Every structure is written in structure tokens, then in C-alpha cells.
């Protein structure tokens, strides 16, 4: 059984804007799932519904088989949320604020546990600081500490690395991986494709309130991420021989590059065969290289297709 089952969830805000349209998604225990989509896609709306901050208009959500609306007392204990903004009480002392989070979720005070979390996030030295004195990066880590204070099974991170520098992004990813390794299921939203590519086990692409695709990241990269074989020619030519054209090569307008797309899983000996074919056609080759489509290209392709589908 999946840890979280999102079943046919829709959300129309009071103003009449439909932010989610029949979203279904299963989240497996122990995985890192990236919810990938552009701004306004409905990512925040979806995780806020799971966490109880937004009421859904339709559908239901189960955690461990329990409805998150009807049985919120059980389900919310297992959920931690790191929100997109930085909503912190500025005058609170860091350690008090994090300890409060734990109690608020119904757990007894546990100084050791709080200390471990703060040390792990390199916040221990700042424990007596007021929150308003902390840097943006530290505030974000405080939010992570607060979300972990009640030892949740699932952690939602809403755009954890939006607007942070490279170093902080890497350290956030480290934290996420360590959490996963310790058994926590992580769902993060992002509009950075590299982010999904870098740390997710699975990617759910969302756009205009609809889930467009859910797949293992590797499978997605492999099945949709066709590779390109690029052959640079010594000198431009007019046209490709019939044999080369039959192999799927296309000549670029400059005449000096021929390109073929291929499925990496059936690529054995492809390069050697291509070189032989060029030699046989009497075309001198200067260089040969391959290119992997990035998630970005896949993503743009998908959203593009979806848009075409919607407008036609």
C-alpha cells in the first residue's frame, strides 16, 4: 500500500479559480518524490491540502489508509511541512521556537532530540538567537528543524531551494538525502529541473492543476530522454547518401553536421556502425559525440504538448 494516496483531488478557490483538476498520485514509503511544475501549476495548493492548510473541493487523501481530513489527529502527527515562504515569529528564540513545534504536535519535550536536530542542521550555535537575526538560509533550516521536531514519517518541502545560493542548495539536498536514508519519505516541489534530476527518485510533473506524468526519474530519463548521436564532418556536403538517410541521419542546414536520435537501450554498436556507414559513403568524419536530453527538454516538450492539446 502506498504511504500517501491522493485520489481525484480538485480545488477551486473561492474566487472561482480552479487550482487543481482531478489530481491522483500515490507516494511510496521511503522515496523522494519531486513535484515539478512551473509557477502557478498548483504545487503549493496540493501539498497544503495534504497538510491541512487548504480545504479541497473534491476527492480524498489517505495517509497509511487514513483520511487526512476525517482523521487529522492521527495523520498530521506523521506529516512535517516546510512552507514555501518564511513564516517565522521574528522575536522568538530559535531553540524555544523549535521546541514549541514539537509540543504543538503533541509530543513531550525532548531536549536531546531538539539538540540533535539543531546540530544536524548546523543551527546549534545559534540556538539562543532571535529568529529575526538569522540569515535567509538559516531561517529556512529553522523551518526544516521545526518540521522535523515531531519526528514525522513524511516531510513536505515546498520549493526548498528557491532563491538560495548553490552552496545552500547542495546542503539542503544533503539533508534531504540523509532524511530519506533514515526512512523519512520526502515530497518536494520545485520548478528547477536540475533539482528533480539531482535528488528525486520519482518525478511527478504538474501543470495547470493537472498531473501530466509520474515516472521513476531514471525511467523517465531513459524512455523520454532519447540520446542524439552527432557526427561532425570534415567539410560540408550537399546531401546524405540514401544509406545514411535510411539509418535516420539528418543533415543540419550548415551541411557540416549529421544527427540521429536513438534509444540508449538499443544503442550497442551504433557509433561504430555509423562511422562505417559514413566511410562507405565516402564522407570524412572529424568528430563524433552524443548528447543526453535533460529533464528540462523533456519537461518543456511535455508542457508544450499539453498546451497544444488544450488549445486544439
Amino acid at each position, binding site marked *: 500500500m502506498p504511504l500517501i494516496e491522493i485520489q481525484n483531488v480538485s480545488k477551486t*478557490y*473561492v474566487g472561482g479559480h480552479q487550482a487543481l483538476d482531478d489530481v491522483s498520485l500515490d507516494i511510496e514509503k521511503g522515496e523522494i518524490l519531486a513535484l515539478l511544475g512551473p509557477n502557478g501549476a498548483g504545487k503549493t495548493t496540493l501539498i497544503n491540502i495534504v*497538510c*491541512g*492548510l*487548504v*480545504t479541497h473541493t473534491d476527492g480524498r487523501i489517505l495517509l497509511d489508509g487514513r483520511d487526512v481530513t476525517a482523521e*487529522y*489527529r*492521527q*495523520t*498530521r*502527527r506523521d*506529516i512535517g*511541512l516546510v*512552507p514555501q*515562504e*518564511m*513564516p*517565522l*515569529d*521574528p*522575536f522568538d528564540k530559535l531553540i*524555544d521556537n523549535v521546541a*514549541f*513545534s514539537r*509540543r*504543538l*504536535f*503533541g*509530543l*513531550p519535550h525532548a531536549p536531546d532530540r531538539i539538540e540533535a536536530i539543531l546540530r544536524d542542521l548546523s543551527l546549534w550555535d545559534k540556538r539562543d538567537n532571535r529568529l529575526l537575526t538569522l540569515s535567509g538560509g538559516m531561517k529556512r533550516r529553522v523551518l526544516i528543524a*521545526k518540521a522535523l521536531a515531531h519526528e514525522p514519517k513524511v516531510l513536505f518541502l515546498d520549493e526548498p531551494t528557491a532563491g538560495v545560493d548553490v552552496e545552500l542548495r547542495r546542503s539542503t539536498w544533503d539533508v534531504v538525502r540523509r532524511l530519506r536514508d533514515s526512512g523519512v519519505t520526502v515530497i518536494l516541489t520545485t520548478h528547477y529541473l536540475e533539482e528533480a534530476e539531482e535528488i528525486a527518485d520519482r518525478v511527478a510533473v504538474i501543470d495547470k492543476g493537472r498531473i501530466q506524468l509520474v515516472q521513476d526519474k531514471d525511467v523517465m530519463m531513459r524512455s523520454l530522454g532519447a540520446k542524439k548521436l552527432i557526427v561532425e564532418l570534415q567539410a560540408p556536403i550537399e546531401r546524405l547518401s540514401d544509406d545514411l538517410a535510411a539509418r535516420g541521419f539528418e543533415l543540419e542546414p550548415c551541411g557540416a553536421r549529421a544527427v540521429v536520435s536513438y534509444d540508449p537501450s538499443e544503442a550497442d554498436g551504433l557509433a561504430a556502425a555509423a562511422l562505417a556507414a559514413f566511410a562507405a559513403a565516402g564522407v570524412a568524419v572529424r568528430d563524433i559525440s552524443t548528447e543526453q536530453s535533460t529533464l528540462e527538454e523533456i519537461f518543456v516538450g511535455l508542457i508544450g504538448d499539453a498546451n497544444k492539446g488544450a488549445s486544439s
Partner: protein
Amino acid sequence: MLNVTSIWAIYRREMKRAFGTLVQTILSPVLTTSLYFIVFGSAIGSHIGKIDGVDYGAFLVPGLIMLTVLQQSVANASFGIYFPRFTGSIYEVLSAPISYWEVLIGYVGAAATKAMILALLILATSAFFVPLRIEYPLVMVLFLVLTCVTFSMLGFLIGILAGNWEQLQMAPLIIITPLVFLGGAFYELKMLPPFWQNVSLFNPVLYLVSGFRWSFYGAGDVPIAASLGMITLFMAICIVAVWRIFATGYRLKP
């Protein structure tokens, strides 16, 4: 079953916040009250004489306590819930395994406790200035508790409904203060011309001040039953309003 740990977490934190700003929360009302006693009780009171056999200074005590309790209950509770709404940190309370009513108990309980502590401080302060007498201590305590809780609930409502800081500050200022001043905090109803006496009977706060004064000196502008009825009605109205807001998630959950 109540989630006591969570309620206690909110309550403790709110109480701590109050005593973090000790000067503002405690000292200023005590100072203000002392000034009232010096100016009204001693300077002006000496020209007024006794009301129903009570020194004017002593007559003032219940009204002054009511003034502070109403203002502080509303101000504390409205700030307590508005501030996390303003910073956004309310997300945490709303995503916790805790019902709205438990949230209410935490915030309103803390605000009411603070108001009660202030009332006792003012009572103690006033004992330095005037001869105090409390004829019905149990009724006094009951009245105090009901008033603190009810007006903290009103404050909680204001804190949820307020759209900005200005609205938040205006509510206690333009609603509570005039009602208390015109509700017989500093005079006896009989001192007004008959027309204004009748108008005053529509001021709900009059019933609270009167009832509270009754618990001190055994006399009030209206019968004690009317006062108790009024505070009960107030509380019922607040509970219904809070219940409606919670049922719809208005201003809390989009």
C-alpha cells in the same frame, strides 16, 4: 479527548510572550490605575463624597478593573492570533493535530489569564489608596472569569477578522473604551439625566460594571441577575460567532 499537550504548548508560549514584555503588559496598567486613583479618587473624589455609602475612590475600583480587563482581554487575544496570521507562522498551528477549539482554548485561555492577573494587580494596587471591601468574593471571581474569557473570545474574533493592523488596534479603542466610560465605570447611573439613564440601559457593558460593583459593595445600577444574564448572553454570542468561523474556515483556510 482534548489534546492537552498541544493546548498547553500554545498557552505557555502566549504567557511567555506576555511576560517577555513585562513592562508593557503589567507595569503600564498598574501605573495608569494609580494615576486614576490619585487624580479621580483623591483630588476629584474629595469633592464628590460618598455614593451609596461608599467612598468615591473605592466606588471607582470595580469600574477601573472592568475597564482594564475589557481592554486587555480584547487587545491581548486579538494580537495573539493576529500576529501569527500576519507573519504566516499560523501555518504551523493549522497543520498541527489539533482542533480549532483547542487552538481557541490555548489562545483565549492565555489572554484571559493575563487579564485576570492584571485585575488582581489593580485590586492589590487599589488597596494602597482606598479602603476596599468585597462582599461577595465568589461572585466577584465568577464575574471576573466570565468577563475575561468572553472578551478574550471577542478579541480572538477580532484578531481573525482584522484585515490589517489598523483595524486590529481600532476595535478595542473605538468599541470597548467608550462603552466602558459610558457604562458607569466612574459614576452611578442615577447621576445621569433620566434620558441618558435610559440610553445607558442599552449599553451592555453597563451590566458588567454594575454586576462587578455589586459583588464588591452589594449594590449596582441594575439587578445582579440582569448582569449575570448579560455576560452569559455575551458569551453565547461569541461562541456562536467563533463556531461559524471555524465551521467555514473563514480567514483561516482558503
